[in-house]
């Protein structure tokens, strides 16, 4: 069998582009899990709502960038409100209750979107429409821009976690919630802020990804499913691990679809998930705990 190097290169670019978007979705998810200990089943719906807010703002203002910023902020605020009214009262209860709560939120948001916007997919016009030639393909610049923007958002967030005053609060709370509280860190508000940041990141990825697929009420589902795989493979709550896993899995899928159809290539991520759970249940990118 000859190796099709050109296809290989194209799929590498595709894998990295998808991987960066996925990393952006998964960062929010893993952050919320790592700090609030909540598995957020509504994450895909926050992604979807972000895309819809993007559609609306784009329709009124005509500016993609304004749509991106507005969707991030509005969905972050919505996330904060959701956390305060549904998750905060459940602190200290059985984790199952938070799963039910976020699952409930996801159903409500999805059906709200269906009721409000109807079943027909909307379109977000990409801000740049140029192409460049990648071997024999006209490859859209916009795809590369998505990857760069996602990387920039994740990078900015990482810098904030590393050096920002509130970043240190977030990391301290992740490691020891009780001691963080005893050091005067307002832990309930850190939780709300983290949920809001995660929601904002999901919304930003929704807007960024909107131009590549249609925006509809169910668009979040495949993403959140894949993001869950990434979060488990990367190590629950491990931000760096999730980013690495997102790119790793997306690349594997992209390469697999050289030989099989893209819908079959999805199987690859499940295989990785199962192998990870079997042999490295704490995640591929964390040292095995002693």
């Amino acid at each position: 069998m000859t190796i099709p190097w050109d296809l290989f290169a194209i799929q590498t670019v595709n894998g990295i582009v998808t991987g960066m978007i996925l990393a952006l979705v998964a960062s929010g998810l893993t952050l919320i899990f790592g700090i609030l200990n909540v598995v957020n089943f509504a994450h895909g719906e926050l992604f979807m709502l972000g895309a819809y807010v993007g559609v609306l703002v784009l329709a009124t203002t005509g500016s993609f960038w304004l749509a991106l910023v507005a969707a991030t902020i509005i969905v972050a605020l919505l996330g904060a409100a959701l956390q305060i009214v549904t998750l905060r009262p459940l602190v200290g209860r059985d984790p199952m209750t938070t799963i039910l709560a976020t699952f409930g939120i996801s159903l409500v948001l999805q059906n709200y979107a269906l009721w409000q916007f109807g079943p027909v997919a909307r379109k977000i016009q990409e801000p740049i429409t140029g192409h460049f030639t990648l071997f024999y393909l006209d490859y859209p610049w916009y795809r590369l821009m998505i990857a760069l923007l996602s990387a920039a958002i994740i990078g900015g967030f990482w810098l904030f976690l590393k050096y920002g005053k509130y970043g240190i609060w977030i990391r301290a709370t992740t490691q020891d919630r009780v001691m963080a509280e005893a050091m005067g860190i307002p832990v309930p508000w850190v939780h709300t802020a983290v949920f809001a940041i995660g929601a904002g990141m999901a919304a930003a990825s929704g807007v960024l990804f909107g131009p590549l697929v249609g925006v509809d009420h169910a668009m979040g589902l495949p993403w959140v499913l894949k993001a869950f795989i990434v979060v488990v493979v990367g190590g629950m709550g491990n931000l760096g691990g999730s980013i690495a896993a997102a790119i790793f899995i997306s690349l594997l899928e992209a390469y697999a679809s050289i030989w099989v159809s893209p819908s079959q290539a999805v199987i690859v991520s499940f295989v990785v998930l199962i192998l990870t759970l079997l042999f490295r249940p704490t995640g591929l990118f964390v040292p095995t705990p002693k």
Partner: protein
Amino acid sequence: MSPPKPSVEPLVQVEDLHAYYGKSHILHGVSLSVGRGEVVGLLGRNGVGKSTTLKSIIGLVAARQGRVLFDGRAVTGVPAHKLARIGIAYVPEDRRIFHLLTVIENLRTGLDRDGVSESRRRQLLDKAYAYFPVLAERRNQPGGTLSGGEQQMLAIARAMMLEPKIILLDEPTEGLMPRMVSQIRQIIDVLHRDGVAILLVEQNVPLTLEASQRVYFMEKGEVRHQAVASELDVNDPVIHQFLGI
């Protein structure tokens, strides 16, 4: 003989405090007080509720009954993060430093408050580094890589960053080498000289008697006896009665 009263105005007063872990009743009406700038020892066998008393004061264990007054104000039920901001610092038994945060970041958790000027931050850090030079050397090292004694110093230094009026100090010398123990002993004196009150839970009886002005003895979730520390020695029958040594 009437029990000794704090010679200074009380800073923390605990009155008839009851606390539970799940269904088990741990504190059965603890009452004690710590004066402004006073070092008070809390002695008793394992499991009599000493640590729980500290946790209830800082609000990490909810009081089911009774109250805590701080600076004359009732603070029962106030969340720990608010108490930390008004002057109650807590150094837990297992130190609980943030392992993945560097030494300086651990200190910043207490420093990054509103109303701390840049020069004040500098002063507080310099003070901590002067008392614990090893922390200055290791400032960019993750807290988890420090030795047990160094972690204890970091835990105390971190509490000092809050500029507390009182530090609740839970078994600071547990598991430390003798050299480290005497260093902890010195830092208690330094804090005392700086006017910081300390409520000290400690298994090391001689150290507690030396460092404290008064001591309370707990048994079965209650304070059963109190004494002026300088009037007791390690062989006192009271010590034998409450600690079995």
